[in-house]
């Protein structure tokens, strides 16, 4: 490791680098507050970033880790498409998964920031748009076998040329969506973010000069690289392999393997995903941009989480992908759920491989998905189509320091909910419940977090529903002797006499394909998702019986679960539950016996 060449004094660097963070944060504030579609403003499924003139990521807002590296592929594709260069006021639009995109709904805008005729960097803004056509609402076609089923594929095109909107591109966008009324507002929101970046970067260069700002961009990369390498040095050298599965590609019930071989040498890491499944028929194939991102965000949790997210992190990490495969999608493979299921499963294998190198720092796996579901119809009162979608979260894994988080969005994003009352105010739908699922956390000395159950129904009209999910066969694995979390399920009419499992395990032990779309939801029926729990950490029999009792008192664990999963017997004396020490001793003794 050599010391980076410092071209700016460390104090000026600290100040200007904080300015980069400020700019991207401000971009996101403005995008969120001006956008029209709920997936942007409520769920915060977007990212904003700054790039240097060589299209290297300098700074990014931290909403969506799965955009961590993939934004770079988008900006590069935008620049490659216009080799003559971009002029001030040009805005390039793209979503092509095979040219810098990840899946159809993720739309990326790139704009150069020009100071006195010199391009000092690029601003990029990406958001998940609610609908760009395709064979199911939101483009989420769980059994798609061709990319055209997933909606409008946009190669890099100039939406604005020197500040002037191209009406042809705009008209094509509006003609290819189920929700044309969102398009203008969301376009404006992205534009507001880009203009914010332009204004603020101008202010920064006016104060420090273009040369200093450019030097600080270079140093920002070197700085993150130094921090990343230092963190890698703390991981023992070696070759570590792990394997995990996606429940289904949406077409066949077969599990799809992801395999990772992780090699640590000094201050560098190589992640080899080439032994993963070949391309599959259904939409869990993942473009290269996304597979890179998944590796980076998975590693970042255990390298230097606080190092500024920029391209300096890429330097000591090599990602090896096959020419074609589920982790490197090729035309015309459908890709929608790659960004959700496959990104998470790649992260799971990276974590499980890393867990062999640093077992004392590893945690149980998260529920490992996005669980994106939608209920859509035409509002019978207004005739306006609506798509009500939410991303109900499951549990995080138990950690060496405590229980996993309950119902918290998984690693690849940090999305927020579709709020109950506002949703009911603007859509003809009603929530029946939003609750934690008792006994869903993977048992462990430190328990996995609980999954969430949500029931939702259109009010007095029929609709269609769909969901993408991938941990309904086997739960999220535990570590260090911790058990798996409860797998997920989707149901129609939960809790009623005509309850029906739509995806996941039925009470009779039949497993139904868990990802589906366009499933009819007749008038009066409800749709329920049960998100998986997180994996446990450590032997459940080592959990303090007092803490098991607390969990029982709060209903996180049932009395039956306490005995079955933890060997803790709960008795009730004078109406107050307490630990039955003698029975607990016997149950835990028997467990030890059976292990021998």
């Amino acid at each position, binding site marked *: 490791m050599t010391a980076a060449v410092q071209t700016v004094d*460390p*104090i000026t*660097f*600290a*100040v200007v*680098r*904080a300015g980069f963070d400020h700019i991207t944060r*401000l971009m996101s504030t403005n995008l969120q*507050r*001006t956008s*029209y579609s*709920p997936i942007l*403003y409520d769920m*915060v499924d977007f990212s904003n970033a700054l790039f240097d003139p060589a299209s290297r990521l300098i700074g990014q807002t*931290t909403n969506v*880790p799965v955009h961590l590296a993939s934004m770079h592929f988008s900006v590069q594709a935008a620049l490659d498409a216009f080799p003559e260069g971009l002029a001030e006021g040009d805005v390039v639009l793209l979503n092509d998964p095979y040219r810098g995109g990840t899946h159809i709904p993720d739309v990326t805008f790139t704009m150069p920031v020009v100071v006195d005729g010199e391009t000092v960097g690029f601003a990029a803004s990406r958001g998940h748009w609610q609908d760009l056509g395709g064979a199911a609402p939101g483009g989420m076609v769980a059994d798609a076998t061709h990319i055209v089923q997933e909606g409008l594929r946009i190669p890099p095109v100039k939406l604005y040329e020197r500040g002037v909107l191209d009406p042809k591109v705009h008209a094509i966008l509006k003609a290819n969506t189920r929700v044309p*009324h*969102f398009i203008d*507002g969301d376009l404006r*929101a992205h*534009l*507001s973010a880009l*203009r*914010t970046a332009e*204004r603020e970067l101008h202010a920064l260069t006016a104060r420090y000069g273009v040369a200093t700002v450019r030097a600080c961009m270079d140093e920002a990369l070197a*700085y*993150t690289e*130094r*921090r990343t390498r*230092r963190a890698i040095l703390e991981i023992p050298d070696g070759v570590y392999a792990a394997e995990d599965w996606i429940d289904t590609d949406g077409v066949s019930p077969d599990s799809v393997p992801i395999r990772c071989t992780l090699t640590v040498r000094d201050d560098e890491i190589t992640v080899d995903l080439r032994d993963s499944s070949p391309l599959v028929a259904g939409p869990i194939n993942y473009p290269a941009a996304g597979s890179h991102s998944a590796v980076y*965000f998975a590693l970042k*949790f255990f390298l230097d*989480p*606080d190092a500024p997210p920029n391209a300096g992190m890429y330097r000591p990490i090599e990602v090896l992908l096959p020419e074609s495969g589920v982790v490197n999608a090729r035309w015309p493979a459908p890709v929608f759920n790659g960004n959700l299921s496959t990104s998470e499963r790649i992260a799971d294998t990276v974590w499980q491989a890393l867990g062999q190198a640093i077992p004392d720092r590893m*945690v149980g796996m998260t529920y490992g998905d996005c669980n994106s579901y939608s209920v859509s119809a035409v509002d019978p009162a207004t005739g306006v189509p609506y798509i009500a979608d939410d*991303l109900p*979260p499951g549990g995080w894994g138990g950690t060496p*320091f405590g229980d996993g*988080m*309950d*119902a*918290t*969005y998984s690693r690849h994003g*940090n*999305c*927020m909910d579709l*709020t109950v*009352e*506002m949703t*009911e*105010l603007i859509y003809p739908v*009603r*929530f029946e419940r*939003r*609750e*934690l699922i008792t006994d869903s956390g993977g048992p462990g000395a430190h328990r996995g977090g609980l999954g969430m159950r949500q029931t939702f129904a259109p*009010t007095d009209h029929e609709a269609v529903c769909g969901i993408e999910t991938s941990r309904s066969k086997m739960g999220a694995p535990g570590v260090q002797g911790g058990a798996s979390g409860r797998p997920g399920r989707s149901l129609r009419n939960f809790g009623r006499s005509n309850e029906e499992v739509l995806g996941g395990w039925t009470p009779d032990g039949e497993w139904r394909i868990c990802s589906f779309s366009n499933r009819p939801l007749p008038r009066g029926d409800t749709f329920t998702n049960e998100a998986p729990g997180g994996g446990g950490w450590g032997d459940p029999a080592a959990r303090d019986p007092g803490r098991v009792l607390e969990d029982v*008192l*709060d*209903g996180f664990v049932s009395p039956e679960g306490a005995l079955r999963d933890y060997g803790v017997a709960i008795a009730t004396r004078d109406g107050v539950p307490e630990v039955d020490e003698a029975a607990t001793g016997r149950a835990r003794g028997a467990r030890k016996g059976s292990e021998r």
Partner: protein
Amino acid sequence: MKVGIDVGGTFTDLYAFASDGRTATSKTPSTPPDFADGVMAALEAAEIDLREVETVVHGSTVVTNAVIERRFPKVAFLTTEGFRDLVQIGRYHRPSLYDPYGRKPPPLIPRRFLFEVPERVGARGEVVRPLDEPSMHRIAAALRDADVTSVGIGFINAYANPGHERSAGDLLAEGLPTVPVTLSSEVSPKVGALARFTTTMLSTVLRPVVGPYAGGLADRLRARGFDGALWFVASSGGMMAAAEIHRRPEHLFVSGPAGGVQGAIEIGGAIGADYLIALDMGGTSCDVTIVEGGRPFVASGYEIDFDLPLAIPTIDIRTIGAGGGSIASVDAGGVLQVGPRSAGAVPGPACYARGGSEPTVTDADLLLGYLDPRRFLGGRMVLDRPAAEAAIGGLAERLGLDPVETALGVVRVVNEHMAAAVREVSVDRGRDPRDYALLPFGGAGPVHALAIAEIIGIPKVVVPPLPDVLSAFGATALDVTHDAEGTLYAELATAEAAAIEDRFLELEAQARRALLDQGVDPADCSVRRVSELRYVGQTYEVPVDTPADLAAVGAVAVLQERFHGEHASRYGVADPESPVAIVNLRVTAVGATPKPPSARPAAGTAPGAPARRPVLFPGRSWRDVPIHQRRDLSVGASIDGPAVIEQPGSTVVVPDGWTVRVDGFANLIADRATR
């Protein structure tokens, strides 16, 4: 006499004035856990005769501390069946993006004390499922057996129809006549269950805490002859009667900073500066607020902890971890960081010699000559210069810089953090900070303010006469306020203006009534209206001042125009073609109260030549600069930078290019020379 008392985590500050113009101040240590001891000590230190006092206005962090430590009596919360976990689940997101060991804050009320009630109201107020009375009786019995001391009720969509909450409350009152019951529809009848329930839970847990504190304090005051009224500083920037705060203790959550903001408004108002950025820099944190037209921004959504938002209006304050005690360190990438970790008051900066050895901002200020080690806190503490040198020296070694460069770096970095916070409260809302005057307070504010103004390009800084007790001063200037709010969702293009007007009139009547109940003279009452608007399809609202009679011809059009204008200035875009919806209405009733007198500068003993000491500013070399004592400066005195002006409790550092003069209200007005 009117007395303002601000109880902070470290110090209890007092300011008092009488109608004949007498004033008194004191600064004494706070006394957790019973902060009332410190209040009594502050009164004694200022030699206040409580028999002469008509009004005591109390700002306090008592509530904040109870919440941070989750130290509450046993309480319960009832909610709609199926939604027991709504608050615990929150908005799904996590506090730290890449932390595999993430934790969320513990709940305000443990899950075992959350009860579900079969009932349901729809978004338009229609009853979907009737309230199940037998369940209510069962729950009431269980709560009685469990000896709960306070109960909250939050039902889905209760903002649209509070009927079920009220019936449930009545049923509880039958079974538990002595236990206070708090309804979400009364706490905040606005759409948004998470914030409404969180606020209701906060109110529920605080009622058994605040009541005894306020009652106990009142008793102790009365025992010393106090026969006046006790008021509390509310989060929205007004004050509330003690009896009202018993019922609505959630309004105390941001009580601390609200007094300081009012103090800034008062100082600014006297000199015609209505557009201010108030910057309160203390030992551990820095609060920044923007003031326009003599009013702070007020917003809902303040988070009492991660993902626990408040529904009630709160002064919009940006707090960052930058204060005199902020610790400077070198991170894994070799870069200097300052804060957010703080040495606090104990052990404090290295130079306090109380056991702290890590380098802090105060240590850097000392080494650069900004502070006089013998005059800190009015001479009550002698700073240990060698300890500061050792601490900064260690940091310098790790950075490969010399100690003086390092001290300058610490000051530059912390100033940049505060400048960023100033930009956030202004630029983030589309405001140009250069159009505002910066008003620093807190002990450390005036040390750094001119340098911060320099970074941003703010041309004017106003240092008030008593920057270290400005919050207590401000508390004596607060008006009585009451906010009445409601949700009324309608698109403006098709809405009936008369219906919106009727709703505003209802809220006005309600807000006025609340003031009269607190003893305000109707002649002192005024009201103002705010509408929260958005483009149809958005869910973020923009608050807009609203004309008095919306039913008048053209009034709705005026409102719509203001919205487009505000949206454009905040976010850089507006679309006059897009339909606009009204979402929430807010009426603030204001009951005016007597204001503290403006300070008058001392006659000014014509001093001899001021003392001098070496001081270092960024980009300069060491120079002997004049050290003035503020008490020696009379009206019209003018001092060119570089200079330092000292007073008990604070120090004003004046770099090159600034001229400071004393105005007729004893403020120091710093202007930057135009270049």
